[in-house]
């Protein structure tokens, strides 16, 4: 927890002291972490729901998980983990002064996120093709626990997918800032903060994957 005030830490370090733009690296990071806490709680609420319903319908959840494609889920997990790696590497590259390498690595991250979303599209498509989606006739005929399992699956992976899209958009903006020099080796907090966001998005999937795919 940053204990010093921005004044003591030299809040304007690294930029023109004549400028009236206030720069506070630690403050910016701190604010980003606070935002991440809100995301943790958002998904935490959903995980709470999951645990309540799973304790009510253990067998139905087991059955539902068997219907999901573990291979595709595992591929998606590897894809996201790799994208986190490329994002972290993008930050290191920027720290070491290689803006161009950082840009390529950011682009890699976006591309991998795209792969994730394409896989997700096929997964959802398969389920919807089998008439399993909230409100469908077939779904209403399933046992209660399975209805809840699939509803949770759609809502949680859907919410997560939305955050993947948001993350992609954010990183695209960051790529633009990298290309035009707004983000540079002297001031890369925007890149770091987007990296933090991306790692969170990855981490949420790391929890989703076992809870939906591996509990058989």
């Amino acid at each position: 927890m940053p204990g010093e005030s921005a004044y003591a830490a030299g809040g304007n370090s690294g930029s023109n002291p004549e400028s009236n733009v206030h720069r506070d690296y630690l403050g910016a990071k701190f604010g980003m972490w606070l935002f991440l806490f809100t995301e943790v709680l958002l998904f935490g609420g959903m995980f709470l729901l999951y645990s309540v319903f799973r304790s009510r319908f253990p067998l139905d959840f087991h059955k539902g998980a068997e219907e999901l494609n573990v291979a595709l889920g595992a591929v998606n997990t590897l894809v996201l983990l790799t994208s986190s790696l490329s994002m972290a590497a993008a930050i290191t590259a920027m720290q070491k002064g290689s803006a161009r390498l950082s840009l390529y690595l950011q682009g890699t991250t976006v591309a991998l996120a795209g792969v994730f979303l394409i896989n997700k599209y096929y997964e959802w498509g398969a389920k919807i093709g089998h008439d399993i989606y909230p409100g469908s006739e077939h779904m209403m005929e399933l046992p209660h626990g399975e209805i809840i399992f699939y509803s949770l699956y759609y809502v949680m992976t859907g919410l997560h997918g939305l955050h993947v899209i948001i993350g992609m958009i954010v990183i695209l903006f960051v790529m633009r800032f990298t290309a035009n020099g707004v983000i540079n080796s002297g001031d890369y907090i925007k890149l770091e903060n987007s990296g933090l966001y991306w790692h969170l998005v990855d981490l949420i999937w790391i929890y989703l994957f076992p809870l939906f795919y591996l509990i058989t």
Partner: protein
Amino acid sequence: MGNPASYIKDSQGRTGISAWIFSTDHKRIAILYLVSLMSFFMAGVTLGVLMRLELIAPGRNIMEAQTYNATFTLHGVIMIFLFIIPGIPAALGNFVLPLQLGARDVAFPRLNLLSWWIYIAGAGIAIMSLFTGGGPPDTGWTFYAPYSVKTQTNVTLAVFGAFVLGFSSILTGLNFVTTIHRLRAPGMKWFRMPLFPWSLYATGWVQILATPILGVTLLLLILERQFGVGFFDPGKGGDPILYEHLFWIYSHPAVYIMILPAMGIISEIFPAFSKKNVFGYSFIVFSTLSIAGLGYLVWGHHMFTSGMSDTSRWIFSLLTFLVAVPSGIKVFNWVATMYKGSVENDSPLLFAMAFVFLFSIGGLTGLINGALSTNVQIHDTAFVVGHFHYVMFGGTGVAMFAGIHYWFPKITGRRYNETAARAACLLLFIGFNTLYFPMLVMGWLGMPRRYYDYLPVFHKYHFVSTLGSWVVAASIIIMAVNLVRSARRGAASEANPWGGRTLEWTVPSPPPVENFVQIPRVRRGAYDAPEKDGN
């Protein structure tokens, strides 16, 4: 450097309305919030007066039952989501916090402006729900499943508006917490910080950690209505009580978002108008943090009659009693601050004293609600309505009025009419008790809440209560006219008209854009008498 222009005169290169709605100056943003909030407050008051008009006698008076249901829903949504929750932090916190910390602005000024824009967007969406689709929601502001899932009224849009408003709240909390960590003036250690920033700090954490739960709950309600996902539907394996749990896990901490900044204002006013250091500064700090923390653990007390286990219920009841203790400590400390002080009975102090009285009644009736046995008697009755109006209106509302009067000279650079302010305060106090005390009585006797019609035995209480609503409305009009006229034409104010000891009183009234010509160095506690050189 000379005499920099005030933030009101210096438009920073923009003209017209753009100088306000695109400004990242925390003081201008505070004014934007203040004007918006007060407009919504007036709308909410109008709805309240209309409700009381309907309830003046049994049977139909001025509206149909469906309209009444929509009216009380809208009254709640506007007052809670558009007025009280943003309320003090957005309007007064935004203005005063950087000044009290010795800072030039908050940590993230552009995010601050975005918070206001999001607030306006959320308000706009909520207002739209009045006019589109099946008409305004009739579920009550709590939107309980299953009715909120089934009703044909425009729940989805209204709830989406509340969802958007949640982002505004989160960003404000995030901004303030970071500001307090990073931008305190040199020498201002944590325990030299005034109590209003402490209250905003605790509130900020609650905003950050509790609001997302509301976000997910409202999202699930929308998904339930639009796609039938089934989490709250027993026909699909869900449970409507789950909605109640999720809803109150946010909405109980939300009431602490409402009250903690209010208490912060009261903690500023008592020492200033007693010309003394506040009594028990550290205890007030720890009480503030305790209320914020314990407030997360008591949500079940809204659901005692929902069928929870006995064990859960007595635990929630015990924790509810526990969370009342730090509030009590604060009340004792405020009163003790006046002891042997040089007390000036100016209007801010009168409002603050009204707060202590009204909040105490509210708090004590909260305990009656929190005891399991009595709760069965009064759950969903007018007693609860009386209780929460005593704490939210008599508490937070009155504290906000107190703060607006206290910081009025600093914000506008002018003085308001003291006689009119005192008259408004007295009239409000009388009207308030006339309006809400009968609710406590008739609630105990069995008058349900949210009921359009009632048995003749309750008529006399409703009649008195409605009279009270007119007195309250009159007092608010007197107060509004006084403040609005004085803001334009009041006598000019000096920098420190009240003799306050916190940093905002060391800058001109109104302050320049950058707040301080030079960032101060702090060498004393917030309420210690300043040295001869004014520091």
